[in-house]
């Protein structure tokens, strides 16, 4: 048995809709992940700092108010600047076109509303296994 995988979850910018991320945190904990939840209103630098300090295996960011492109661009840029390769998931109310654009930009996956627990865990596991391989 290896140590549980650690995932850092956070909300970024001024958006404060947290039902999704709180629910996802609980789903991932039930699936055996160790979850660190950073709360609301984080900037890219704060997310980066905690990700490094806590040595996490992945980051998950949730959006509901239309700032997903701006905030994800910033976060992914910071991660690249530091030469890190932490996979970053994002989820929430995100139009299809933007979801495609986010994947191209380097998001590990984009998880959309109406995803059941089993599917969420399957998507996250798949990426984590890919990273490990």
């Amino acid at each position: 048995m290896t140590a549980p995988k650690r995932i850092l979850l956070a909300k970024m910018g001024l958006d404060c809709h947290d039902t999704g991320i709180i629910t996802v945190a609980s789903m991932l904990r039930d699936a055996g992940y160790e979850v660190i939840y950073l709360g609301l209103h984080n900037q890219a630098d704060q997310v980066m700092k905690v990700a490094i300090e806590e040595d996490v295996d992945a980051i998950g960011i949730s959006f509901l108010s239309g700032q997903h492109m701006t905030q994800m661009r910033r976060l992914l840029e910071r991660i690249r600047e530091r030469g890190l390769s932490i996979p970053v998931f994002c989820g929430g109310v995100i139009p299809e076109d933007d979801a495609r654009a986010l994947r191209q930009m380097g998001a590990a996956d984009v998880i959309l509303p109406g995803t059941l627990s089993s599917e969420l865990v399957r998507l996250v596991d798949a990426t984590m296994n890919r990273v490990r391989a």
Partner: protein
Amino acid sequence: MGGRLASSHAGPARDSEEQIFETGAGLEIRELYRPDDIAGFDPAQDLGEPGHFPFTRGPYPGMYRERIWTRRFQVGFGSPLETNERIKYLHSQGANGFVITIDLPTSYGFDSDDPLSDGEVGVTGVPISTLEDMETLYEGFGPDSVSYALSIRPPVSSVTLAMLASVAQRRNVPFEKVIGTQQNDPFYQMSGGPLQTITQFFPLEGTLRLCIDNIEFISKNMPRLNWMVTNGYNLRETGVNAIQDGAFTLGHAFDIFRRARARGLDVDLFPRRASFFLSCSIDFFEEIAKFRAMRRLYARTMREEFGASNPECWRLRFSVQSAGNTLTRQQPEVNIIRAGVEAMAAVFGGAQSIHLCSYDEAHGLPTEESSRIALRTQQVIAYESGITKTIDPLGGSYYVETLTNRMEEAIREKLAEIDDNGGMIECIRAGWLESQINDERIRNQNDLDTRRRTLVGVNRFQIPREEEIPLKIHRIQAEQWGARRGEYLREYRVSRDQGRWADAMARLEAGWRSGENMVPLLMDALQNKVTMGECHEAMRNAQNWSFR
């Protein structure tokens, strides 16, 4: 909360599908309701006449026969000018009231050019940073002729109230003629509701003081302006059930009323124009019963516990938005039906104003097309269905009256629990509310995962992704909007009289320290071109508080 899961409520129906015979909040639903289920029910005591104590049948005597509910339209994006143009168009299309959504920086009291506003300007609503911005929003309409409800909360709502009062002054509209709704819920305006949303950028005690300042200013100066006590909508959207919704909403209102009374405000005066913003979810009869029960419980509490003798202070009035959290990303057209069911429940429940969510809610911000369908849905109910033509048509139904009684009882029990914990504000401070919310969120997800609850298109009756109909998407231009607003504000700050600005800032800080009502001081500041963000900065300084 007991009674959520009881196997006796479940059983196979004739088509062998497993059904669960309970409401969304877990109240048992029996096979048939008969006269003896409402034994002891006294129509004179428990129903009364519409517009009379205890208001079970509706807050007004004539209800929809006299006036169809306000069909509110949500609008707000980009800039005050674009938003005003959109309002003019919608007004010509038959919308007669507007919920003005505010962008996130404005919601937190930041000007569009604040570094924290980067990427968020104009996205979820209109940015308002100056008195001039508010004047632009009212271009073509007087504050006595069109009803706006700004989705805002204290501390910011004190500034927008001061803007509204200033617009009225400049247009020579007397305060007593100003209409609309001033949202004034310090806690729930920020969707989600963790305490962090309230405390991160402004001290909690200061926010509560401004909430009471607003109530005082409105009740003494603007007798026709509604002020929203509780944003029960956002609270419900976190995932709590209908009983919690009713109890948290009313518990919060009673706490705020106690504070207003402690300020010396008259309980026969200030609640007159109090109003509520509530969610109407998909569980049809439970929602109808919730509205009827809340009205009755409010009337009884205001009369018996608060000792109000003015009937206007017993009357709970509310606007409704259909439940965004019942809508799905999958097969989004089905959401039009969901919103239709919810709108009918709101009408049977006696709502004063309704706003329906657009069917593309789970994809992005609404488009013109999806907002129009939401308005048309209401128009079909209002003008075609005929359900508005008699008052409280479900009154006297064995089932609806039983459920109304049970909801009132359940909400009352939950309220007692809140009181035992020191009242709603204390429940929020202590994290009790947040843990109640989080328990429900997990339970809701679990109910979907296990198919205990059906969500069409999500856990049953799905279609492959490629069969989904593509949607039009509302385009966000955050970067351009932000840049334009930045330029505007630079110009605004440079061109103002710096001496008058500095004096007004100093008066704000001094007024805060001496405990004055801040609304007139904010009017003075705005008229001297202090921006909204600067007003907040001055009030934070006066509290020796900083977050930056």
